């Protein structure tokens, strides 16, 4: 293997090396080590203290961030009625909150981006110089994430177009724009525009590598796996996800998501036992991360693995548990589908009263959700004929018509 000289490595660091060099360096430990040595030499082993004006500026920013923690609680109690003073610290705190809110309640996150815009309008742009432009870009990017999660794809793409116009003045404009490109790729993947998605990933990947953003690089790999899966290329999907698992630097959420995805690829190729192992590991990680809903979702899929393996007694407690968990959290769609799975296991074990009881509960959920008339009719018929020899087959058909095997989730955004 031929490693690159210092001049070429400096070009790579500066973002002006040819693609072949960037590709090599991103994967080469020797070149990475040489870059570190080169930077060590440039620093000349000496330190420089910050001038007082810069130190004061950093102090003001940090003070604003500290004060924003308490102020954010006040704002979140009544965002519409909040009339407190706006600072960039408060805005940064709100943007961080919106980021976490995206997973919990994207509609609420979307509403909060409007409040963030109002706060931004009250900030003295001269005093804050370039930072207000970047913050505007961040608001539009978060808005796009929320819109994507609400399946408002056209608006999500338009929001990214707007975000992009605010970044050029930022010192890290290339990283910000790469992050926009990644978000676009995730939307294109949802829209089955795979070639467009890949073009965006190709533009983002070298920038993430230059900034040492390993986790974001893993998210690129994770998304490439999801795209391959959706195109039915199971081998490529598995290879991408196995590479994520083997890589250093993956955070636990990425690992959990990757294991969850990999399990679905293994299920598609009939490797049920390996799929269950990955799902158990994913559920454990989600629990440790304090994400009980995701953990339950993983356990639900384990139950479905056992259903496919016809291991009814192991499937049953997992599926009943998922049904009850989602029902308790008013996640009616998931509760209904998990209920149908649990009824399948009861039926296979010839426990007709339990199967009927769960199906009646699911029927109520379907009526509450105003589900398609034919599905409701089919379920009503099933409840009445639960002991017939064709009930099991009818239940499977109903289940498949409502929700074919779900696609693996793709990362929403390159997470921090």
């Amino acid at each position, binding site marked *: 293997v031929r490693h690159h000289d210092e001049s070429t490595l*400096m070009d790579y*660091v*500066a*973002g002006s090396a040819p693609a072949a060099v960037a590709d090599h360096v991103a994967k080469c430990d020797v070149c990475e080590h040489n870059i*570190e040595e080169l*930077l060590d030499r*440039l*620093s*000349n082993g*000496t*330190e*420089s*203290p*910050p*001038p007082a*004006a*810069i*130190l*004061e*500026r*950093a*102090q003001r*920013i*940090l*003070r604003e*961030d*500290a004060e924003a923690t308490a102020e954010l609680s006040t704002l979140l109690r009544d965002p519409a009625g909040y009339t407190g003073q706006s600072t*960039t610290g408060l805005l*940064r705190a709100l*943007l*961080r909150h919106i*980021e976490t809110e995206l997973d919990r309640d994207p509609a609420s996150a979307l509403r909060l981006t409007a409040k963030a815009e109002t706060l931004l309008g009250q900030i003295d742009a*001269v*005093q804050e*110089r*370039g*930072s207000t432009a*970047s913050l505007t870009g*961040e608001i539009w990017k978060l808005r796009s994430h929320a819109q994507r999660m609400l399946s408002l794809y056209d608006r999500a793409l338009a929001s990214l177009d707007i975000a992009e116009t605010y970044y*050029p*003045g*930022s*010192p*890290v*404009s*290339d*990283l910000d724009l790469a992050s926009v490109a990644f978000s676009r790729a995730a939307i294109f993947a949802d829209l089955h525009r795979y070639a467009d998605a890949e073009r965006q990933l190709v533009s983002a990947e070298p*920038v993430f590598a*230059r*900034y*040492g*953003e*390993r*986790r974001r690089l893993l998210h690129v790999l994770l998304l490439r796996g999801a795209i391959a899966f959706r195109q039915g290329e199971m081998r490529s999907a598995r290879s991408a996800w196995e590479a994520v698992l083997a890589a250093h*630097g993956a955070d636990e959420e990425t690992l959990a998501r990757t294991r969850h995805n990999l399990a679905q690829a293994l299920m598609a190729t009939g490797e049920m036992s390996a799929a269950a192992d990955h799902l158990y590991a994913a559920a454990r990680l989600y629990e440790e991360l304090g994400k009980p809903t995701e953990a339950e979702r993983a356990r639900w899929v384990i139950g479905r693995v056992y259903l496919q393996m016809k291991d009814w007694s192991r499937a049953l407690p997992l599926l009943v548990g998922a049904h009850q968990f989602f029902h308790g959290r008013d996640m009616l769609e998931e509760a209904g589908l998990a209920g149908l799975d649990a009824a399948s296991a009861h039926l296979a074990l010839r426990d007709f009263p339990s199967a009927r009881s769960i199906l009646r509960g699911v029927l109520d959920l379907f009526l509450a959700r105003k589900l398609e008339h034919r599905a409701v009719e089919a379920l009503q018929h099933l409840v009445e004929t639960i002991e017939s020899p064709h009930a099991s087959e009818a239940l499977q058909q109903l289940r498949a018509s409502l929700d074919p095997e779900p696609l693996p989730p793709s990362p929403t955004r390159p997470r*921090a």
Partner: protein
Amino acid sequence: MIDDALAAWEAAYRSHYRVLFAVAVQRFHIPLADAEWLVHDVLVAYVQSTRTIEDLRRWLVGAICNASKNYWRSHKREESLSPSALSIPDPRATVDVFDSAIAAHEALDDIHGKYRTAVQLRYIEGCTIPEIAAKLGTTSRYAEKLVHIGMQRLKKRGEK
């Protein structure tokens, strides 16, 4: 808590300032005073970042390279300065060049962002050089230079 965060930022400044400055000057040939400005912009962007940074040195180096490229992109649109640009213009003389405050504002639109801000603070808002330096988060020496260059450009524009 602020003290800890500030100490961490100061440590990052102390250990990375030199390498960032060297990259800007040696790799991108940025003039010394502007290189100082760019490095400060990058280090302030770091303290303002809402994201977790995985590899601080690579992030900062990536940022200074990008900021340096942006610098030359924006300077391509501007005329180069003659050595006389560094002489101190008399603001009263410059005011005479314009017929009205409206013309002054229009003229300000023609100069680059940081020069524009510096001139605006000095001659429209009446700030002193140390006050401008504090507002822009830079040194007095650099703030003074921004005002001088900005005024020279205004003068040139007024003569056209």
